[in-house]
């Protein structure tokens, strides 16, 4: 399911116009992205939580050539699945 399909599904489910649904889907993911950019945690009950994890620089290797490369420090969002979602994904089959 991509963003467009998400928008059509929301339009139908919430009985709103397509442009309203598009705005809301955008607001939803933009709010989360903005929070992560300013290093704020996200907690959406039942779905998931996120926090920004910081990685130090380290010496890695190019797996193709075996060459040593310096990996710069980086930040990545760390995803944790919510309890409800975790249970539902497991009980479906």
């Amino acid at each position, binding site marked *: 399911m991509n963003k467009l399909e998400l928008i059509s599904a929301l339009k139908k489910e919430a009985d709103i116009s397509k442009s309203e649904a598009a705005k809301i889907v955008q*607001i*939803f993911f933009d*709010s989360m*992205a903005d929070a992560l950019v300013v290093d*704020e945690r996200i907690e959406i009950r039942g779905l998931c*939580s996120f926090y920004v994890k910081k990685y130090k620089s380290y010496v890695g290797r190019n797996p193709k050539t075996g060459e040593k490369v310096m990996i710069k420090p980086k930040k990545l969002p760390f995803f944790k*699945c919510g309890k409800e979602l975790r249970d539902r*994904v497991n009980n*479906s089959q």
Partner: protein
Amino acid sequence: MALTKNKIVEHVNELGFTKKKSVDIVESLLEIIKQSLESGEDVLVSGFGKFCVKKKDTRRGRNPATGDDLILDERNVVTFKCSGKLRESINK
């Protein structure tokens, strides 16, 4: 302060929906995402990232407290892969 559902509802409220409708809309959106993942379908959001359902096989594990061997059943887990665009703005 963490970003919660409440804050997102407020943003939707600012579009001119009533408070109750805003809550309903956000809950619908969450439900759609959960249903998709529950049915095994990934959710792809360009500019943000993708939520994928991955199947984990049965494996032998160990109870870290007692050291007993045990079998972990096969299960499904949800993983998230950050989009390049989001990763860039986080590292700016």
